[in-house]
């Protein structure tokens, strides 16, 4: 069985243990060359087949996009955008394979409250371990790319695993293996970056002067990268974030808030304790009981009441 020993884990969600630092695997990456993509959906098909997923048979809503969005059973999806380039007046059919970007600093992992439900292997793959997933949906809020989906049947989070089972035995992810035009490449991250450079040059020679590599620094870089003709405006490609980063809200909630919270609660308790040992209890003296009785007596007389009833 292909299995990652703890030594190959770089980060692990909600864990108090420090992950081992000794061993480092070579980082792998998937390079999606949008300029070579024909939107054939072979990647979607191969993904469903390899991962034994079968989504529902939907309907046509007026475009080529099916299923209409990522789901717990659709881990990768071709998104189609018809763009009329104002500079050239040419129609461009911008087709992007959407799916987990396998960030170096994964928002999902940062947000996850369940120990070991999300791990990052030292080769860069970010994997959901559904066995440990509690279905809270924090990863959905943590992800800057809107990728994870919670299944409404088993209430667990799902997304692309970068075929960790294939990569573990030295094979390319199913989508990369299938891709007919070689638009999806797979290899070491460095090899993919080098590959991207040659593609960018080719695109520039064909008039796309803003062609470039999408490997956003905001999340520490990704292990799924794009070659874009319009790297200056990623959002053209069905809303690919221009400058993705973990939301400050999530960052604060998982950082400052956590510390402040525990501190505040702890302080309240401790303060109470020291107050008790300094000021001591606030108790009723016997005299006050007697004064109370007298006051009651007096009040009763005013009211002209009878004898005090025996208990």
């Amino acid at each position, binding site marked *: 069985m292909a299995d990652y020993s703890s030594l190959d884990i770089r980060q692990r969600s909600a864990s108090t243990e420090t992950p081992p630092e000794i061993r480092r695997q070579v980082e792998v990456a998937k390079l999606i060359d949008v300029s070579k993509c024909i*939107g054939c959906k072979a990647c979607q*098909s191969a993904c469903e087949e390899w991962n034994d997923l079968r989504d529902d048979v939907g*309907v046509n809503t007026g475009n080529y996009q099916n299923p209409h969005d990522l789901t717990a059973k659709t881990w990768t999806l071709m998104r189609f955008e*018809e763009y009329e380039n104002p500079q050239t007046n040419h129609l461009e059919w911008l087709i992007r394979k959407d799916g987990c970007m396998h960030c170096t600093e994964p928002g999902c992992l940062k947000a996850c409250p369940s120990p070991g439900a999300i791990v990052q292997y030292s080769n860069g793959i970010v994997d959901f371990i559904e066995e440990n997933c509690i279905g809270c949906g924090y990863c959905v809020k943590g992800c800057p790319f809107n990728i994870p989906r919670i299944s409404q049947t088993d209430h667990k989070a799902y997304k692309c695993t970068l075929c960790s089972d294939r990569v573990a035995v030295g094979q390319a992810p199913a989508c990369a293996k299938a891709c007919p035009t070689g638009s999806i490449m797979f290899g070491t991250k460095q090899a993919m970056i080098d590959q991207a450079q040659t593609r960018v040059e*080719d695109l520039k020679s064909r008039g796309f002067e803003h062609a470039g590599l999408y490997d956003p620094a905001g999340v520490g870089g990704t292990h799924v990268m794009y070659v874009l003709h319009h790297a200056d405006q990623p959002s053209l490609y069905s809303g690919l974030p221009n400058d993705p980063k973990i939301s400050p809200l999530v960052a604060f909630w998982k950082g400052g808030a956590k510390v402040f919270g525990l501190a505040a609660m702890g302080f309240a308790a401790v303060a109470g304790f020291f107050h008790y040992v300094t000021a001591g209890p606030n108790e009723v003296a016997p005299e006050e009981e007697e004064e109370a009785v007298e006051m009651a007596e007096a009040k009763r007389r005013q009211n002209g009441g009878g004898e005090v009833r025996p208990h």
Partner: protein
Amino acid sequence: MTNLWMDIKHADVITVMGGNAAEAHPCGFKWVVEAKAHNNAKLIVVDPRFTRTASVADLYCPIRQGTDIAFLSGVAKYLLDNDKLQHRYVSAYTNAGYVVREGYDFQEGLFAGYDADKRDYDKTTWDYEIGPDGYAVVDETMQHPRCVMQLLKKHVAIYTPEMVEKICGSPKETFLKVCEMMATTAAPDRTMASLYALGWTHHSKGSQNIRSMCIVQTLLGNIGMLGGGMQALRGHSNIQGLTDIGLMSNLIPGYLNIPVEKEPDYASYIAKRQFKPLRPGQTSYWQNYNKFFISFQKAMWGDKAQKENDWAYDYLPKLDVPTYDVMRGFELAKQGKMTGYVIQGFNPLLSFPNRAKMTEAFSKMKFIVVMDPLKTETARFWENHGEYNPVDPTQIQTEVFELPTTLFVEEEGSLSNSSRWLQWHWQAQEAPGECRSDIEIMSEIHLRMKEKYRKHGGAFPDPIVNLTWNYAVADSPTPSELARELNGYTVAPTTDLNGAQVPAGRQVDGFAQLKDDGSTACGCWIYSGCYTEKGNTMARRDNTDPGDKGIAPNWAFAWPANRRVLYNRASCDPDGKPWSEKKKLIEWNGKQWVGFDVPDYGVTVAPDKGVGPFILNQEGVARLWTRGLMRDGPFPTHYEPFESPVQNVAFPKIKGAPAARIFKGDLADLGDAKEFPYAATSYRLTEHFHGWTKHARINAILQPEAFVEISEELAKEKGIAKGAWVRVWSKRGSLKAKAVVTKRIKPLICDGKPVHVVGIPQHWGFMGHTKKGWHPNSLTPVVGDANTETPEFKAWLVNIEPTTPPSDAVA
């Protein structure tokens, strides 16, 4: 394909026109992407729709469907006017200098000898002037007013950029950009690959569409070159094989012909097929026709085919009409003249034009037999499926059989792909249920009939009872046994190529070894070499590729003679030097032809012998002008589709293609632009394969529901919302589908008027996992190409309106 898939990576320009390779052949299209990435190739896409192929193109040019000839004739004119020719190639390797005989003429869109009633030509004048030496007259200077070059200039003269824009709706500037890009490959070291498929064949002048590009490619000197050629991408996995093996009314395996009535005996039959050279010393390879024919007869009837009985010539049926193609078959059925149909892995109810006519034809037959691994609509044409198949079973008296057959994973054998490779495959699982292979079923049918004829006699039993049947297990011949028959074997002692003795019962090495003396038998001469004494060459799996030419000569077997690039002699100049070192395929080393591919030429024939590179042609050269070989003219001419939104501006008098066949009833079923203003076209989507993948869950998920594609402009005009239901109807029928409103289809301005295109993909029916839907054949007209009878699926007229969803089908 004249070349092969990997070869495309050598192209400098790639034109995808009359096809949509990225969508229909994604894995082959990889080599286009490779050419772009590693050979700095430019990709041109000419298509009515901005397709998936166009999405990665360097230059996209819109065109109105059915006007390719005008467009490409315009390109030819551009090349001629601007002297963008591969001169040496054109003068040495084409018939440009050949002088055409007196009497040949072309007036107002018609060639000499037209007979309006027959819708056919008398082609006698369509030939060369024959000199006193008995050979065709050639004017090397190409100045003779009747030489092919001059006639060509005259013929394409009308197709100016302005005229092209008028007819095709392609913007002049874009058209000229296309011309310029193509023209760059006139240089001897630059080549253009032309990729096409059904986008060219599905027309009433499909063959001429292809001819137009052949002319362009020949003028540019791109035929026979690495990274050049005419790449027919083809359709099904073995459509090449079925054509090669001649499963057609008028064919004998290896592109030989079934005799016609007028040829009562073998002498009269072969006389018409001698194919003597038209120039001195030319190969004219078809001179060997008789060897191939006699070997075929021996393969069919063995000892019963003897010289004395004309090689059992009478065993063959004789044609009274050019073809009994499917459309004629169902026309006859509709007329009640057919008793039954045996249908093997085929879904004609959703494959041939005019669904209503198909249903009527099926209903009039006594029986049909469907052999298929899937539950097809055809086998259920009688079953009521609500709106999707509104028939009343009780009114249909047809007896129907559905026989379960095995799938590719449950059998072994070979398939021929579009690169002409015969590849062997192996069995991976047992067949489910009671499935049987087509081989077993056809064998059983034959054996049972033979038995009945033996016992009770009947009409002319001889060809049946005498059919060669030397299989170890009579009712289950093995694919190997059959492959050995296709390859050919000796039936009597004979000699091989070197004159050495060969005993009877040996596999031949290749078709060169076939004899006309009855000593050899061969099922399909062009497949000879696929299963020799050395074994099954189709099962070879050595993918080494010397020189990185994309040839891989030892992978499987390619016909003919394991040759990977046809006409490869033309990749060298007349002296035998490659036009370009970079694109070297073969070369003359002083003694013989050597190189990366099997020479398409006599291996020891020296260049100075003046033998032309196109050895199958009587001229030895490529034909810019095709004599009488095409039914509808020696030059391509622009004719409008039979249903066209505009009239023919080039030849206003002519409606449709003059020589295309159309039956009376179908002629009456044609609609006009007043009633049906929109130009419809049908096509495939990459998520599906015909009607098959609607049975595969994943493909159903990827593209679940039938739709039609229209421009934003038309949608606005008609008040059609994105994703809403529309009704599309023609003179012949109606269908409902979702509307995909897209920028990828734009109205085309033809002759000043906007023409709206309605695109109708063809993958849905009433069986399988996808949502139920209609096939465009509910709407298409029954008219075929003049030469091949391929239906005009790519250009017809419809109307469109918003509508309500279909009431769900009653299963």
